Protein backbone atom coordinates (compact mmCIF):
# COMPACT_ATOMS: atom_id res chain seq x y z
CA UNK A 1 0.00 0.00 0.00
CA UNK A 2 1.25 3.43 -0.81
CA UNK A 3 0.21 6.58 0.74
CA UNK A 4 0.72 10.07 -0.50
CA UNK A 5 0.66 13.15 1.57
CA UNK A 6 -0.90 16.19 -0.04
CA UNK A 7 0.10 19.40 1.61
CA UNK A 8 -2.31 22.19 0.90
CA UNK A 9 -0.45 25.45 1.25
CA UNK A 10 -2.37 28.08 3.09
CA UNK A 11 -2.63 31.72 2.27
CA UNK A 12 -1.71 33.81 5.28
CA UNK A 13 -3.74 37.01 5.62
CA UNK A 14 -2.21 39.37 8.15
CA UNK A 15 -4.43 41.97 9.78
CA UNK A 16 -2.89 45.06 11.33
CA UNK A 17 -4.58 47.69 13.51
CA UNK A 18 -8.36 47.81 13.61
CA UNK A 19 -10.52 44.93 12.44
CA UNK A 20 -13.88 46.55 13.01
CA UNK A 21 -17.16 47.71 11.50
CA UNK A 22 -15.45 50.47 9.52
CA UNK A 23 -12.83 48.23 7.91
CA UNK A 24 -14.96 45.06 7.68
CA UNK A 25 -16.39 45.68 4.22
CA UNK A 26 -12.88 46.18 2.81
CA UNK A 27 -11.68 42.95 4.46
CA UNK A 28 -14.73 41.05 3.23
CA UNK A 29 -13.97 42.19 -0.33
CA UNK A 30 -10.28 41.27 -0.09
CA UNK A 31 -11.03 37.79 1.27
CA UNK A 32 -13.78 37.29 -1.35
CA UNK A 33 -11.22 38.10 -4.05
CA UNK A 34 -8.85 35.45 -2.69
CA UNK A 35 -11.60 32.83 -2.46
CA UNK A 36 -12.72 33.62 -6.00
CA UNK A 37 -9.10 33.19 -7.10
CA UNK A 38 -9.21 29.63 -5.74
CA UNK A 39 -7.67 29.93 -2.28
CA UNK A 40 -9.27 27.37 0.02
CA UNK A 41 -6.88 27.29 2.97
CA UNK A 42 -6.22 30.38 5.04
CA UNK A 43 -4.26 31.43 8.07
CA UNK A 44 -5.79 34.59 9.52
CA UNK A 45 -2.98 36.26 11.42
CA UNK A 46 -4.52 38.58 13.99
CA UNK A 47 -1.34 39.03 16.04
CA UNK A 48 -1.13 42.71 15.12
CA UNK A 49 -4.80 43.54 15.63
CA UNK A 50 -5.27 46.38 18.11
CA UNK A 51 -9.07 46.58 18.09
CA UNK A 52 -11.49 43.80 17.21
CA UNK A 53 -15.28 44.10 17.31
CA UNK A 54 -18.28 41.97 16.30
CA UNK A 55 -17.85 42.96 12.65
CA UNK A 56 -14.25 41.75 12.85
CA UNK A 57 -15.47 38.44 14.24
CA UNK A 58 -17.88 38.25 11.31
CA UNK A 59 -15.04 38.75 8.82
CA UNK A 60 -13.34 35.63 10.17
CA UNK A 61 -16.48 33.49 10.35
CA UNK A 62 -17.63 34.48 6.88
CA UNK A 63 -14.47 33.28 5.16
CA UNK A 64 -14.54 30.09 7.24
CA UNK A 65 -18.11 29.31 6.15
CA UNK A 66 -17.23 29.98 2.53
CA UNK A 67 -14.20 27.71 2.29
CA UNK A 68 -15.73 24.94 4.41
CA UNK A 69 -18.20 24.40 1.57
CA UNK A 70 -15.20 23.33 -0.55
CA UNK A 71 -13.36 21.36 2.14
CA UNK A 72 -11.17 24.34 2.88
CA UNK A 73 -9.81 25.40 6.24
CA UNK A 74 -9.08 28.52 8.23
CA UNK A 75 -6.49 28.64 10.98
CA UNK A 76 -6.02 31.63 13.24
CA UNK A 77 -3.16 33.35 14.98
CA UNK A 78 -4.57 35.10 18.05
CA UNK A 79 -3.97 38.80 18.75
CA UNK A 80 -1.02 39.65 20.97
CA UNK A 81 -3.26 42.15 22.76
CA UNK A 82 -4.79 40.29 25.72
CA UNK A 83 -8.08 42.19 25.63
CA UNK A 84 -8.66 41.37 21.95
CA UNK A 85 -7.75 37.74 22.60
CA UNK A 86 -10.36 37.58 25.36
CA UNK A 87 -13.05 38.68 22.92
CA UNK A 88 -12.20 35.73 20.68
CA UNK A 89 -12.38 33.33 23.61
CA UNK A 90 -15.68 34.89 24.69
CA UNK A 91 -17.07 34.12 21.24
CA UNK A 92 -15.51 30.63 21.51
CA UNK A 93 -13.41 31.09 18.41
CA UNK A 94 -10.90 28.66 19.87
CA UNK A 95 -13.53 25.97 19.22
CA UNK A 96 -14.49 27.17 15.75
CA UNK A 97 -10.99 27.82 14.40
CA UNK A 98 -7.78 25.89 14.70
CA UNK A 99 -5.54 28.20 16.71
CA UNK A 100 -1.89 28.25 15.67
CA UNK A 101 1.01 29.97 17.34
CA UNK A 102 2.43 31.61 14.26
CA UNK A 103 1.68 31.99 10.58
CA UNK A 104 5.35 31.89 9.66
CA UNK A 105 5.74 28.66 7.74
CA UNK A 106 7.98 28.35 4.70
CA UNK A 107 6.30 28.15 1.36
CA UNK A 108 3.16 29.97 2.39
CA UNK A 109 1.95 33.04 0.62
CA UNK A 110 1.26 36.18 2.56
CA UNK A 111 -1.20 39.02 2.12
CA UNK A 112 -1.17 42.06 4.37
CA UNK A 113 -4.45 43.91 4.87
Amino acid at each position, binding site marked *: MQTQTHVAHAMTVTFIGRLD*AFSASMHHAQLDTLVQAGVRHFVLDLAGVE*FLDSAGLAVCVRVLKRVQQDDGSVKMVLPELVAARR*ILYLARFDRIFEIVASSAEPGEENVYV
Partner: protein
Amino acid sequence: MNTLHTNCEGDETLRLELPATLKYLNVVGACVAEMLAQVEDVADMATLSYTVQLGIHEICTNIVQHAYTQQQEHKRIAVTMEMRAQPRCLCVTLWDNGKHFEQSEVQEPLLDEGQVHGYGLFLVRNVMDEVTYSRQPEGNCWRLAKKL
Protein backbone atom coordinates in the same frame (compact mmCIF):
# COMPACT_ATOMS: atom_id res chain seq x y z
CA MET B 1 -32.47 46.64 41.98
CA ASN B 2 -29.52 48.92 42.53
CA THR B 3 -28.41 50.66 39.40
CA LEU B 4 -25.15 52.38 38.68
CA HIS B 5 -26.96 54.99 36.62
CA THR B 6 -28.61 58.02 38.19
CA ASN B 7 -29.92 61.11 36.49
CA CYS B 8 -27.63 63.65 38.12
CA GLU B 9 -24.53 64.86 36.33
CA GLY B 10 -21.33 65.74 38.10
CA ASP B 11 -18.20 67.62 37.17
CA GLU B 12 -16.65 64.54 35.57
CA THR B 13 -19.05 64.52 32.64
CA LEU B 14 -18.05 64.57 29.01
CA ARG B 15 -20.46 65.04 26.11
CA LEU B 16 -19.93 64.11 22.48
CA GLU B 17 -22.24 64.56 19.55
CA LEU B 18 -21.17 62.91 16.33
CA PRO B 19 -22.45 61.94 12.90
CA ALA B 20 -23.90 58.43 12.87
CA THR B 21 -21.30 57.03 10.48
CA LEU B 22 -18.80 54.26 11.09
CA LYS B 23 -15.75 56.39 10.30
CA TYR B 24 -16.24 58.55 13.41
CA LEU B 25 -16.64 55.74 15.92
CA ASN B 26 -12.93 55.56 16.72
CA VAL B 27 -13.26 59.14 17.99
CA VAL B 28 -15.54 57.88 20.76
CA GLY B 29 -13.06 55.13 21.61
CA ALA B 30 -10.22 57.64 21.84
CA CYS B 31 -12.25 59.82 24.23
CA VAL B 32 -13.08 56.84 26.42
CA ALA B 33 -9.41 55.86 26.55
CA GLU B 34 -8.33 59.36 27.56
CA MET B 35 -11.06 59.61 30.20
CA LEU B 36 -10.15 56.26 31.73
CA ALA B 37 -6.43 57.07 31.61
CA GLN B 38 -7.08 59.55 34.43
CA VAL B 39 -8.40 56.84 36.74
CA GLU B 40 -5.90 55.60 39.30
CA ASP B 41 -5.43 52.20 40.89
CA VAL B 42 -6.87 50.03 38.15
CA ALA B 43 -5.17 46.63 37.95
CA ASP B 44 -5.42 46.11 34.19
CA MET B 45 -6.24 49.44 32.59
CA ALA B 46 -5.45 48.24 29.06
CA THR B 47 -8.10 45.52 29.20
CA LEU B 48 -10.60 47.71 31.04
CA SER B 49 -10.20 50.50 28.51
CA TYR B 50 -10.55 48.09 25.60
CA THR B 51 -13.71 46.48 26.95
CA VAL B 52 -15.43 49.80 27.68
CA GLN B 53 -14.48 51.10 24.24
CA LEU B 54 -15.86 47.91 22.72
CA GLY B 55 -19.16 48.14 24.60
CA ILE B 56 -19.79 51.71 23.50
CA HIS B 57 -18.51 51.03 19.98
CA GLU B 58 -20.94 48.12 19.52
CA ILE B 59 -23.95 50.19 20.56
CA CYS B 60 -22.85 52.99 18.20
CA THR B 61 -22.43 50.47 15.38
CA ASN B 62 -25.90 49.12 16.10
CA ILE B 63 -27.33 52.63 15.89
CA VAL B 64 -25.51 53.39 12.62
CA GLN B 65 -26.44 50.13 10.92
CA HIS B 66 -29.91 49.40 12.32
CA ALA B 67 -31.54 52.43 13.95
CA TYR B 68 -30.99 54.87 11.12
CA THR B 69 -32.23 54.26 7.60
CA GLN B 70 -30.39 55.51 4.53
CA GLN B 71 -33.13 58.00 3.80
CA GLN B 72 -33.17 59.58 7.24
CA GLU B 73 -31.63 63.01 7.59
CA HIS B 74 -29.74 64.44 10.58
CA LYS B 75 -28.37 61.11 11.70
CA ARG B 76 -26.51 61.84 14.94
CA ILE B 77 -25.44 60.02 18.08
CA ALA B 78 -25.23 61.88 21.38
CA VAL B 79 -22.89 60.32 23.92
CA THR B 80 -22.56 61.32 27.56
CA MET B 81 -19.83 59.78 29.70
CA GLU B 82 -19.66 60.39 33.39
CA MET B 83 -17.18 59.20 35.97
CA ARG B 84 -18.88 58.36 39.27
CA ALA B 85 -17.13 58.04 42.60
CA GLN B 86 -19.50 55.90 44.71
CA PRO B 87 -19.44 53.23 43.49
CA ARG B 88 -16.54 54.04 41.19
CA CYS B 89 -17.83 53.49 37.68
CA LEU B 90 -18.12 54.96 34.22
CA CYS B 91 -21.71 55.59 33.15
CA VAL B 92 -22.43 56.12 29.47
CA THR B 93 -25.66 57.24 27.85
CA LEU B 94 -26.21 57.13 24.09
CA TRP B 95 -29.10 58.81 22.31
CA ASP B 96 -30.31 58.51 18.74
CA ASN B 97 -33.41 59.46 16.79
CA GLY B 98 -33.64 56.33 14.68
CA LYS B 99 -35.98 53.39 14.67
CA HIS B 100 -37.07 51.73 17.87
CA PHE B 101 -34.80 48.85 18.93
CA GLU B 102 -36.73 45.61 19.13
CA GLN B 103 -35.13 43.22 21.61
CA SER B 104 -37.23 40.28 20.43
CA GLU B 105 -35.58 40.48 16.99
CA VAL B 106 -32.14 39.87 18.45
CA GLN B 107 -31.14 36.24 18.85
CA GLU B 108 -28.28 34.98 20.95
CA PRO B 109 -25.37 33.81 18.80
CA LEU B 110 -24.82 30.09 18.32
CA LEU B 111 -21.34 30.14 19.75
CA ASP B 112 -20.29 26.61 18.88
CA GLU B 113 -21.17 27.06 15.21
CA GLY B 114 -19.93 30.55 14.54
CA GLN B 115 -22.08 33.02 12.69
CA VAL B 116 -21.76 36.09 10.58
CA HIS B 117 -24.27 38.21 12.57
CA GLY B 118 -25.35 38.46 16.15
CA TYR B 119 -22.19 38.97 18.19
CA GLY B 120 -22.65 42.69 18.84
CA LEU B 121 -25.07 42.84 21.76
CA PHE B 122 -23.72 39.56 23.08
CA LEU B 123 -20.32 41.23 23.47
CA VAL B 124 -21.81 44.36 25.04
CA ARG B 125 -23.67 42.38 27.68
CA ASN B 126 -20.55 40.40 28.48
CA VAL B 127 -18.11 43.28 28.80
CA MET B 128 -20.31 45.87 30.56
CA ASP B 129 -21.87 45.67 34.03
CA GLU B 130 -25.13 47.34 33.02
CA VAL B 131 -26.85 47.55 29.66
CA THR B 132 -30.36 48.97 29.33
CA TYR B 133 -32.38 50.29 26.43
CA SER B 134 -35.51 52.44 26.57
CA ARG B 135 -37.60 54.29 24.05
CA GLN B 136 -38.11 57.85 25.24
CA PRO B 137 -40.17 60.67 23.72
CA GLU B 138 -36.90 62.34 22.62
CA GLY B 139 -35.45 59.17 21.06
CA ASN B 140 -33.73 55.88 21.78
CA CYS B 141 -31.72 55.77 24.96
CA TRP B 142 -28.99 53.25 25.77
CA ARG B 143 -27.39 53.27 29.20
CA LEU B 144 -24.18 51.40 29.86
CA ALA B 145 -22.10 51.22 33.00
CA LYS B 146 -18.79 49.67 33.96
CA LYS B 147 -17.40 49.40 37.45
CA LEU B 148 -13.82 50.63 37.68
